[in-house]
Structure formats: structure tokens, C-alpha cells
């Protein structure tokens, strides 16, 4: 029976450039219920919501398959505007508010109430006079209806606490007449605990008024606290629709991670390493990194020599900040000790000089000189830090073109970089080959510790396998200690010796790759609970 559902998305499939991101996904929401949509990063949650809102990005990439029913009626949502007409609203993760406008102006933006004037009778209603009294009265009403009596409707949004901005955004959606379904896209991610609790109360309040809510989140405890039902996605596939009262945290966590056994690394690479707690390669004490969006807040880890150490966790929890701090891109506090020597990270290049190399997660932004040749990219760091590929001529150190050329050709062969030659611009390579260039630059430094951040993001499966295999190989053959930061748990579990799950800027727990899926799922969600499964 479709009629019992307010929204029913059926067999939704979507491809981006031949890459299937959604496969036969179903989503049903009853009127007035809070429905949680859970899944890891990249599970397809955002794409599903983009389809629901008829976002242009969906249609410019060839549309989607499947149908969307509202109250049992088939609909054709082809633009965000139609979605709005159907009574679907969204509370964005990044606030869509104009800072210099007041709360009222923001709430009423695009739906201002006007009074006709002499000018507007001639030139149309764009020249209406604003009816400020009515507008602020209505803004007040929607603010009150979510219990925000203490937000002044005439205050400017700029300078408000983040939580308040979120509430203004919600009030704006509520203020739209005929709103039936409200999507909250990770609304608690940016809030403090108190504010988050408040938000959950508001969500309950809204749903008690008969407005259905789709709640997208990573935080499973919040789902358990507030939602009535949930849909779980994994790798673009529909896993299950569950009623919250019939399920448990551990079960959801397990379904979210799933058993995806896929050997990414050849097992024939021989294993004769002896890891010991006595020989520590890299050590963090109360380590803080001030990287916006990926803050590290007091981290303690010891990484053994010769180990492949994984750092996992959800986006925004700080795992990426760790590496960027060491490489001097953001300010740090606390101690980082490499082979017993404390690094002074205020000095640029300190890590590189101490044999720590880094492959950035942001290939195009940090990892490459896009307009320069492959050769320049690969040799740059070694040249600047170790004076390699240079000849001393008088007072100047001049590029030793022949040597740089030879080394680049070796690297192209070693890593199978598909290019037209050493002088091809790095920007014109494909993602996978760019990643290989980044890796080549790092290993040209002949590091003792190699930190790779999201090494397989956005690259094809062939390149992925090669990169991971190569990392394992240099670990085994040259004893390079590897710290691998990745959002892909499968990847970490397939090659790491230990995996630290990072949550809210701290190490939540250090796990073994063969720990249960449920344990990983709970750790990722930041839930501390004894698992007996």
C-alpha cells in the first residue's frame, strides 16, 4: 500500500559518467514521522536527496531511473522549485543565510510580503513596498513554533552562534506554507552537544505537527533517540528499512559497514617483519591541529617502526588534520616525535628533513603543481629539501636536467604512469595518474615514514590496486613505516596492521583489522558500547 506513505522513492538508480552511485534504492516516509537516512561517506545519501530536490546536477548528468511518489501520486520533480511547490524543504548543512540580513529578511527571502505602491502599479510588483510588520510577525510565529522565543527577529544573522543560524534556517523552512516534508542534512554535525539536543527536541516538535522529516546523519545515537524508522544505504545500495523500535545500535552499525570482503592487496608479498613496541617510528602526544573542518583535539598514538598504521573515521572528525599538521600546512600544538626526535613543526619542511614524506588527500589543491611538468612535480621536494637533481655552478645550484629526466622516466615505469612523456603537464593527467605522480614525489624523498592521505580517492580500480600494492611493497621491502589515512574502511582493513578510528579529533579506539564489522561501525559512529556479537 503506497498510500500510507507521504513520500515513496522507488528503485532509484543513478550513474555519474558510467560510475553507478545508486542502485535500486527505495525510500519510504510516512506522514509526520522522523525517518533517518544512514550510511557511510559516499553511500549515496546526498545523491538520493539531490534527486528528491531535482537538482540541476542530476539532470545535467543524464537524469536518473526510478520513480518518486508523493501521497501515492507519481510526480515529476525536475527542479528545486518544483520540489518546493510539492512542499519539500531542506535544512542545509552549510547555512544558506545572508549574514548581513536580519532574521526576518532571511526567513522571508524570496517570499517577501509587499504592499502595492504607485510605482509598483506601473512597473510591476518588484517595486512593492515591503510590509515589514506582517513579515516580522510571520517570522516571529515560525520562530516561536520551534520554541526559539529568544531569537530576535530584527537581529542580524552575522555574529549569531552557529546553533542559532541553524534554527533560523529551520524557521525559514517552516515558514513556507504547505510544507510537508523537511530534509535535515547532517544538522548536528556543526552543533555543540547542548544545541544538538535542542535540535532533536525541535525535530520532535515539528514532526508532532504532522510534518515528516528525513534526517541524514552519521550519529547513530541520535537516530536511536529521535527517529521512528530508518533506511540504511551502503555503497549506493539499499540495505534495509528498519523500524527503530525493532532494532539495536549494533545491528545498524553492522549493516552500515557490511561485509565487503575484497582482497585489494596480493597476499603473495612475503611477510617477515618483526614489529615491536620498543621501536617507535612516530609518536604523538596531546597533538592538536587547527585545520578548519578537520580539527585534531589532543591525540596520542604510537606508531611502530615498519608498521602500516591506518587512520580511519568519518569525514570532519580530524583524521585528515593529522597529516596536514605534520606537513606544516596548519598550526599545531603538542608533541610529534619521530625516531625519538621531537619535531619543531613551526619550522617549514621540518617533517621532510626528518624523513617523513606526505601524499596529500587534496591532489589538485596541495599535491600537484598542475601547470608544471611531471618531472618538476616529482623532483620538486627532493630538490628543495635534499639538494638532489642539482649541479653547483658558481654560487647557483642549477637544475641537473639529465638526472631529473632519468629519475622521472624510472618513476613513470615503476608506477606505470600513463603519460605522453616527462614534460606532460600534471594537470592534464587523469586522477589515477596524478595520484601516482604524487606518490612518486613522496618516494623520491626516500622517506622512512610515509604518510598517505586518502590514497585512492577518486581513482579507478586499476590504479587503486597498483597504489595499494606499491605501498605494501615498499613497506615490506624497504621497511618504510606507512601511515595511511582513509575513509575507506575496507582498504584500511585489507592492508593495515592496526587501525585507529578518529572521532571528534581524538583517537576513539585502536582496532585490529579483523575486529567485527559491528565494532568498527560503532567506533566510526563514536558509540562506546560493549558489543557482544
Amino acid at each position, binding site marked *: 500500500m503506497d498510500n500510507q506513505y507521504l513520500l515513496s522513492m522507488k528503485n532509484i538508480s543513478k550513474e555519474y559518467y558510467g560510475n553507478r552511485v545508486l542502485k535500486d534504492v527505495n525510500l519510504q516516509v510516512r506522514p509526520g514521522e522522523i525517518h533517518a537516512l544512514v550510511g557511510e561517506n559516499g553511500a549515496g545519501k546526498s545523491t538520493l536527496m539531490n534527486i528528491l530536490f531535482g537538482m540541476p546536477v542530476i539532470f545535467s548528468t543524464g537524469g536518473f531511473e526510478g520513480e518518486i511518489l508523493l501521497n501515492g501520486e507519481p510526480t515529476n520533480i525536475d527542479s528545486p522549485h518544483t520540489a518546493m511547490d510539492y512542499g519539500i524543504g531542506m535544512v542545509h548543512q552549510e547555512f544558506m543565510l545572508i549574514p548581513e540580513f536580519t532574521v526576518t529578511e532571511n526567513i522571508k527571502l524570496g517570499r517577501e510580503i509587499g504592499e502595492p505602491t504607485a510605482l509598483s502599479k506601473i512597473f510591476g510588483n518588484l517595486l512593492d513596498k515591503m510590509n515589514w510588520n506582517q513579515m516580522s510577525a510571520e517570522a516571529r510565529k515560525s520562530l516561536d513554533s520551534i520554541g526559539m522565543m529568544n531569537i530576535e527577529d530584527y537581529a542580524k544573522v552575522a555574529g549569531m552562534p552557529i546553533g542559532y543560524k541553524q534554527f533560523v534556517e529551520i524557521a525559514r523552512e517552516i515558514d513556507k506554507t504547505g510544507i510537508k516534508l523537511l530534509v535535515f542534512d547532517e544538522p548536528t554535525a556543526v552543533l555543540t552537544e547542548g544545541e544538538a539536543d535542542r535540535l532533536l527536541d525541535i525535530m520532535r516538535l515539528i514532526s508532532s505537527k504532522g510534518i515528516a522529516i528525513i534526517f541524514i546523519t552519521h550519529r547513530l545515537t541520535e537516530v536511536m533517540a529521535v527517529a521512528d524508522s530508518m533506511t540504511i544505504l551502503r555503497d549506493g545500495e539499499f540495505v534495509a528499512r528498519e523500524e527503530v523500535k525493532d532494532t539495536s545500535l549494533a545491528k545498524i552499525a553492522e549493516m552500515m559497514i557490511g561485509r565487503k570482503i575484497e582482497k585489494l592487496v596480493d597476499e603473495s608479498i612475503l611477510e617477515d617483519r618483526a614489529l615491536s613496541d620498543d621501536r617507535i617510528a612516530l609518536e604523538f602526544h596531546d597533538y592538536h591541529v587547527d585545520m578548519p573542518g578537520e580539527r585534531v583535539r589532543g591525540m596520542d598514538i604510537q606508531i611502530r617502526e615498519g608498521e602500516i598504521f591506518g587512520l580511519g573515521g568519518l569525514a570532519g572528525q580530524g583524521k585528515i588534520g593529522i597529516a596536514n599538521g605534520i606537513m606544516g600546512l596548519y598550526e599545531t600544538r603538542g608533541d610529534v616525535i619521530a625516531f625519538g626526535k621531537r619535531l619543531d613543526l613551526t619550522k617549514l619542511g621540518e617533517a621532510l628533513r626528518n624523513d617523513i614524506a606526505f601524499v596529500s588527500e587534496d591532489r589538485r589543491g596541495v599535491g600537484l603543481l598542475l601547470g608544471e611538468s611531471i618531472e618538476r612535480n616529482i623532483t620538486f621536494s627532493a630538490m628543495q629539501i635534499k639538494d638532489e637533481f642539482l649541479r653547483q655552478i658558481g654560487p647557483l645550484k642549477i637544475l641537473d*636536467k639529465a638526472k631529473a629526466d632519468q629519475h622521472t622516466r624510472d618513476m613513470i615505469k615503476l608506477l606505470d604512469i600513463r603519460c605522453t612523456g616527462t614534460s606532460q603537464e600534471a594537470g592534464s593527467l587523469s586522477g589515477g595518474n596524478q595520484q601516482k605522480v604524487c606518490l612518486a614525489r613522496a618516494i623520491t624523498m626516500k622517506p622512512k615514514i610515509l604518510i598517505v592521505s586518502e590514497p585512492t580517492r577518486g581513482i579507478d580500480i586499476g590504479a587503486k590496486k597498483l597504489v595499494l600494492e606499491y605501498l605494501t611493497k615498499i613497506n615490506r621491502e624497504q621497511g618504510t613505516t606507512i601511515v595511511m589515512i582513509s575513509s575507506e574502511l575496507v582498504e584500511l582493513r585489507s592492508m593495515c596492521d592496526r587501525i585507529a578510528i578518529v572521532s571528534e579529533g581524538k583517537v576513539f579506539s585502536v582496532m585490529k583489522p579483523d575486529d567485527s564489522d559491528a565494532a568498527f561501525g560503532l567506533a566510526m559512529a563514536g558509540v562506546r558500547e560493549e558489543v557482544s556479537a
Partner: protein
Amino acid sequence: MKTLKNAYENIGLPRLIIGLFFIFLIVTSIALGFSPAALFSDVVRRWLMYGTLVLAMVPGIQSGIGLNFGISLGISAGLFGSVIAMEISFLQNWNETLGAGAAWLTLLLALLFGIVMAAALGTLYGLLLNRVKGSEMTVSTYVGFSVIAFMNIVWLSLAFKNGELSWPLQGQGLRNTASLSGSFGGLLSNPDVVQTTQPRWLHWLAFRVGEFTVPLGLILVFGFLCFIVWVFFRSKLGIAMSGAGENQLFTTSSGINVDRKRIQGTAISTVLGAVGIILYAQTYGFLQLYNAPLMMGFASVASILIGGASVRRAKISHVLIGTLLFQGILVTALPVVNEVIEIGTLPEVLRIIISNGIILYALTKTKGGNQ
């Protein structure tokens, strides 16, 4: 067909259009009866005259400050160095004590003062540009204008004894245009000067082949400067600087202080500006003070853009091609226009329209390369 297409892609549409226009002008002027040798002599002279000023754009672009509209800072330093050197030369009476060597010593002294001043000013200017990251080009334009205004005050208040420099019948202030004929004017490029004032063993510096003038001295100096800049950008420091201009985060993560590289790049650009204006004045034969250098920054920027540089990447070849096209068109357009239109000041007006037109066109090509 494929090679043709490749060639076209390498040259790029802007250079093709401007190049064809240049060729059209040359053909027209020869058809109108101008001597090709004189015309080409003029083109080469102007090319070398402006070359170093355009070359000064390269370190700025490569180090990431973009198009250095504030090159007037370096120009002012070079002019100041020149007037100081000339005044010293006059006070010490070098012309009588040193003979032919006086001009050389004055030139070297001018370069020395100019370079030292430009390096100091350029460093300060670099510090300023580091504080306005993202809008360097706007700021540098106004720095360029302001420094000219400031120097106007300086020129007006200098009380020099050298009659070539100071206003006649007045104690204070320098002339608008000071002749360098008694000093280093034409020393590297003008056959008349070289052949009459210099000893025989220096006559190779500038000579004539038929009607065609070969300013060999200037060619060598400009070539040497280009070579120095080319080598510099293959050195460790130069490569670090290029990296800083291309991607700040990349370069920082390789342990390089991006801000310092930008300051160095700005300083080098400013120094080249100072050297550039001294070579310019040397070729032209006059020192132009006050508002004359006001728009030189724009001409330099336009030249390198026409040559195919972008706001982020520039090569020596861009300097050579761009300057040749830009100056070549100005040199050839004027006589053609003069011949075709003979009404009052209209040719001068047209010259301004053409030169600013090229600048405008060049500024729409800031993406560079072959777009």
C-alpha cells in the same frame, strides 16, 4: 595537416591575429615607400629598448604576485639612480678627467644606485603585496601610480647643479626631459655616438650594415639579462619561486616559505625594472622624468600577455615575442597612419588608440597560452 594544426595551437589565436596585423603593417609601409632597412632598424631598436622592462614581468608572474603593474617603482629607482650618477659625474667633472670613460662610469654608477634602491624598495613592496594576497594586481596598479606622484615631488625639489638636469635659470627642480647626449645616451646602441665618442676597439658596439643599424652592445646586454633570468628559473631558488607562484600549499608542504619567495620575486622584478629603464633611457637618449613612466607598466604588461604569458606563468619566449609584436606594431603603425591621414594631430590620436587598443586586447588574454 596535423603539423599545421599543432603549429597553430602552439602559436595561439591572439599571436596569430597580432602577428598578421604586424605583417600587414610592414607590407603596407614598404608599399608606401618607406625604407625597409630603416623600418627594421627602428623595430629592433624599440624591441631592445622595452625588452628589459617586459623581462621584469617574469619574476613577478612566476613568484605569484601576478602582473607587476607597480614596475614604476623600479623605474623610479632606475631614474633616481641615473640622475644621481649624472650629478656626481658633473660635480666630479668626469668628462674632463676621464674622457671617453666618463659615460661608462656614469652608466655603471646609475645601474649600481638603481639596483640597490630597487632591491630595497622592491623588498618593502613585496612585504606590502604579501598583505594583500588575492588583489595584488589592483594594489600594484595604485602603487605604480602613487610612486610616480611621489617622485614628481622629488624631481621638483631636487637642487642639482648639472645644467642638463635642472631647469635653466632656476635653482630647484629637474627638467621633464633630460638629454643624455653628453652622458651615457646611445653608448650601447647608437652608431653615431659610439663611432664618434668611443675608442676604435669599442666600435663593434653599434654599427651600420648598409642602412640597417646593428645595436650589438644592447643586443648582448639584453641577451645576457634574458639568459640570467632563464638560468635563474632553472636554479633551486628559481624553481622554488616558480612553485610558490603556481601553488602555495604545494610549496609550503615542500618546506618552502612562500611569502619569502614572493618578496624575492618582487624585488628581482623591481630591480629588473630599474635596469630596464636605464637601458631604455640609454637607447632613447633622454631621461624622461615626471609622468612619462606612468603608463610604462601597462605597456610591459600588455607586451608579455601578447607574447602568450598568463597571470601565473611566463617564459622568456613570451617576453621576446610579445615585445616584438607590441613595439613592432607601434613603430610601423605610426608612419603608415601619418601617410594615410594627414590632418593635424589625428595620427597621434590614432597612435594612442592603437597602443591602448593592444593593451586592452592583451588584458582580455590574462589566461594566457592559446585561449
